[in-house]
């Protein structure tokens, strides 16, 4: 565990970058420092690997004061990823990744083999190994940066706005990759960003900082969204707080209806059987069970269903895996107000109305639940 104890950073001209910060960064989780410019988040990160020395206070890792060991030993035990990757343009990709192992004394072959392993792990094609940084795209360079940080298998990873310099599509891919890698490796990650959505998405714990280096709130993202500690945090979280909070409720508890579903080749009898007065529509699926669209029962002609005349079914959600937010989104997207639930294979498992989803939301609030972060 990394403990930051009453740490202050004051510069000679009087600016206080970090003001009496104290918190504990948990092991094997992603802790995100987020806040506007000048809030001290990057300064805090750089104090952990002593790129900046605190004016007051101490930082300890697993009980050991970081100033009690040679600074380079400390740094070699941590991965450090920065914006723009900071790759060595004069070295090949594989030699870039092998940097810290070589620093630690590994022989060239072993270091390169490890580098190849890591390229695979971060999703880089092996053919890029002998290329130079200028030949890679921004997203690829960032991956190399992450691989380089992981090369010596450090327990701690420091990441300073690593995904800010790439476009949103690439950024999402990198965020997902990071979560996947974290699942596999379980590192202690300290992550700095100015993007609250990124913080909420990837953080296990989020530290919101205010300009002037003050800690505004330190909590899991769900808690942040439901109980912001003050107006600043609330403001920083932005709009749609309630809806975003729904990402933290699983859809597993939703009761699905399976009756109002017919296949496209259904007979008139089947159609009649499936129609109920509770549900004004029927969901039509293809012969494999994948959704095609909604229709009023009366408008369906057995044996001659025209998919083009069906009402849009919106966006299906994976029941149990995705969140209530995804379910609600699906319901809102369809003109019928009903959401379609599917399994991992894309086959319909049931349907659910906005009302049912609404009730589920209310009971989730009532139970004071805060599930583990759910996708969507």
């Amino acid at each position, binding site marked *: 565990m990394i403990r930051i104890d009453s740490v202050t950073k004051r510069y000679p001209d009087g600016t206080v970058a970090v003001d009496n910060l104290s918190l504990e960064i948990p092991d094997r989780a992603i802790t995100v420092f987020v806040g506007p410019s000048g809030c001290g988040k990057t300064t805090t990160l750089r104090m952990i690997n002593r*790129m900046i020395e605190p004016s007051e206070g101490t930082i300890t890792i697993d009980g050991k004061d970081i100033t009690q060991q040679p600074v*380079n030993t400390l740094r070699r035990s941590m991965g450090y990823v*920065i914006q723009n990757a900071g790759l060595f343009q004069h070295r090949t990709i594989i030699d870039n990744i092998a940097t*810290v192992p070589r620093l630690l004394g590994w022989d060239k072959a072993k270091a390169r083999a490890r580098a190849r392993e890591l390229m695979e792990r971060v999703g880089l094609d092996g053919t890029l190994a002998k290329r*130079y940084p*200028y030949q890679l795209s921004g997203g690829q360079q960032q991956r190399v940066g992450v691989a380089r940080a992981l090369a010596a298998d450090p327990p701690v990873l420091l990441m300073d706005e690593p995904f800010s310099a790439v476009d949103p599509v690439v950024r999402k891919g990198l965020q997902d990759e990071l979560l996947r890698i974290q699942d596999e490796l379980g590192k202690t990650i300290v992550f700095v960003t100015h993007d609250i959505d990124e913080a909420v998405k990837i953080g296990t714990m989020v530290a919101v900082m205010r300009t002037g280096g003050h800690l505004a709130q330190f909590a899991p993202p769900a808690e942040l969204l439901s109980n912001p500690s003050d107006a600043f945090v609330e403001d920083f979280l932005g709009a749609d707080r309630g809806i975003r909070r729904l990402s933290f409720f699983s859809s597993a508890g939703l009761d699905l209806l399976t009756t109002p579903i017919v296949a496209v080749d259904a007979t008139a009898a089947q159609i009649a059987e499936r129609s109920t007065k509770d549900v004004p529509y029927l969901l039509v699926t293809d012969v494999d069970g994948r959704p095609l669209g909604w229709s009023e029962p009366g408008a369906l002609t057995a044996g001659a269903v025209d998919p083009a005349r069906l009402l849009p079914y919106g966006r299906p959600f994976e029941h149990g895996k995705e969140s209530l937010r995804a379910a609600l989104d699906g319901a809102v997207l369809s003109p019928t107000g009903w959401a379609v639930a599917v399994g991992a294979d894309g086959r319909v498992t049931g349907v659910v109305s906005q009302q049912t989803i609404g009730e589920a939301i209310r009971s989730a609030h009532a139970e004071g639940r805060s599930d583990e972060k759910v996708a969507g």
Partner: protein
Amino acid sequence: MNVLHFINSFFSDSSHWHGYDGIPTRLREHVQYSLIALAIAAAIGLPVGLLTGHTGRGGNTVAFIATAGRALPSFGLLVLMFVLLGLGLTPVMIPLVVLAVPPILVTTYEAVRSVDPSPVDAARGMGMAESRVLFQVELPVALPLILSGLRSAAIQIVSTATIAAYVSLGGLGRYIVDGLYQRNYEKVVGGATLVAVLALVTLGFFGLVARFTVSPGVRRSAP
């Protein structure tokens, strides 16, 4: 045309290829003096340039050295050293070296200063010692500019060494200075051609060095 005629007859005269005043001897002398001067100037300029560039301190002094280096007249210095210190190699070497240090020092300083700070920060963050950062991260990237500074100095030395013949240095300048005195224009033009060729060979040499020492990752768009 007269010039070509002079060149032709100079080089076809076989006596010019032998003896203490022969082309091989003079060429060798010139190259020797130039190499020594370059080595000394580099031994002074490179470390200082690397250090000041890496730490960023001393920028004002470097700027001053740049201007001073340009303002000192090469020929004047040669003659000055000669009248103060007399005949010999040292009075010539001093101006050669002194005039070659600024290009090396200043260009090396600028080269290291202009390296992208991101990889340098990343290297420190990874736990590289300062000296490693300088030699393994900054230097390879700064190399093209540093080499151009060395090239610049080398050409300047070749040129000044030519003029140094006036204060009794050997080398290819001998042909020009002696020829002017003797009104032997064949010699003058022959010497001029040799010196020009040597300068161009120096250019080419540094081009080759760059090709072999600069990493392809750095070279990509440099002319």
